[in-house]
């Protein structure tokens, strides 16, 4: 009589570990707001969050809620799930987007057929809560 092997544990979703730099961004995501770090001295936006403005070297920054629209810069369609958590989702489109806010965001693009993908295509950022602390970005067509 054979015994079925114990079921493998469900793969865990990889989650961001917010840092002192990035915490305001992730706090914003949780509240469905796209918070982008801006230099207090020269006003330029920067993403991903970091301590020093690379333009004017100011250590002072603030996070502002920004518009969620953007245009596709590039994309890939992920077929091979390098992490088993994403096996069920594959193939999935990941779009790199030039946000109207002046920074880029990389996130899954949902509801757009592969044949309709094009550079400059307009998309909008959405917010998907995955734990009580973490909300991840995704895109849909604008």
């Amino acid at each position, binding site marked *: 009589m054979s015994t079925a092997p114990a079921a493998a544990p469900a793969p865990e979703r990889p989650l961001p*570990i917010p840092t002192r730099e*990035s915490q305001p961004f992730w706090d914003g995501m949780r509240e469905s707001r796209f918070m982008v770090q801006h230099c207090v001295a020269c006003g330029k936006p920067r993403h991903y969050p970091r301590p020093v403005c690379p333009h004017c070297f100011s250590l002072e920054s603030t996070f502002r809620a920004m518009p969620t629209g953007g245009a596709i*810069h*590039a994309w890939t*369609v992920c077929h091979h799930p*390098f992490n088993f958590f994403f096996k069920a989702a594959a193939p999935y489109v*990941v779009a790199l987007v030039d946000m109207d806010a002046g920074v880029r965001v990389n996130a899954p693009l949902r509801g757009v057929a592969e044949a309709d993908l*094009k550079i400059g295509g307009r998309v909008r950022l959405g917010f998907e809560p995955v734990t009580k602390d973490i909300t991840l970005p995704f895109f849909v067509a604008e």
Partner: protein
Amino acid sequence: MAHALREKAAISGIGETAYTRGTTKSGLALQLEASLAAIADAGLNPRDIDGVVPYFPGGGIAEDFIANLGLPDLKLSAFVPMGGATCVAAVQTAAMAVATGVCKHVLISVGRTGYSGARVSTRLQQFPQFALAAEFEAPIGMFAPAQLYAQGARRHMELYGTTPRHFAEVAVVTRQHAILNGNVVMSKPLTVEEHHASRMIADPFRLFDCSLESDGGAAVIVSAADRARDLEKPLVTVMGVAAGHPDSPASIAQRPDILEFGLARAAPRAYAMAGVGPKDIDVAEIYDCFTFTVIKQLELLGFCGKGEGGPFIMGGRIALGGELPINTHGGLLSQGHVVGLNHIIELTRQLRRDAGKAQVEDAEVGLVTGYGDMGDGSVAILRRAA
């Protein structure tokens, strides 16, 4: 006036293990096996090594080399953590050390159990330079270099009309060259049709656009050129060498031009140091983590214009017998993945005229690149000096 580093250093020894998929040896054992082969090839005793620049992170560190090789007086231990650009950039570090008299013989080495040990999918989160990618990109499903580099390849296709047929050309030609080499993982012919039929990994990269996950070790010795002259093998000198970093080095996503690699900065410096240009290159070993990466690097090296890399490589130009033979050993795509140290070894063989069936006739000057870590770049120009 010639650059102070020009031809002051030589690749005096080369060594490698068998390239396989499946080994019971540790990465360190493979690294040391290759190191001993390189030391013997240079006609040196292990105790002559007084500098080490091992691949990092992952593999042996100074303590391992002292403990295993009994090094009596190690004067330099350095890391150049630039991913796939590490090995050629390490030649720059080693050349500076031997040219200034800090060291006599510097060992650069890699040992990797990329097939039987740690796989590509787990590497990203372990490296400090990938912390941003791990925080912002892994959670949305972007883990592996194949995925992170795919967006750039797609943009190149959209902007310049580069096609899968161009990608296939790199894969097929590289495989043709691998078949001429006795120490390769992939030894069967590959057709364009087989490339196009291989499974999609991360569009536009199919399986045969991706480099191998393999096991193996490789090593080279960099010596002062005047010392290497006394050794047995034909002298292969470092004419020029440079390394460069792109903007937003830890995140391709935030890079103003996602098709701008560190090589764009390194290449002009290496050519200037060497006193040669693209037209002087007889053979080139181009870091081939992905087929597209080869095409783009040929543009950044000035072999063709921006966006022209696809058409440039067609028609036999990059095959043996063509105008610019590349990856004459089979590269990372078909020989094995030892982070490009095999490219330096192959170029040295070519310039020694010791490359067997893949020998480029009368090869005098050759070029080798490294690419990695989201876009770091390195390039060395070597010359047969004896």
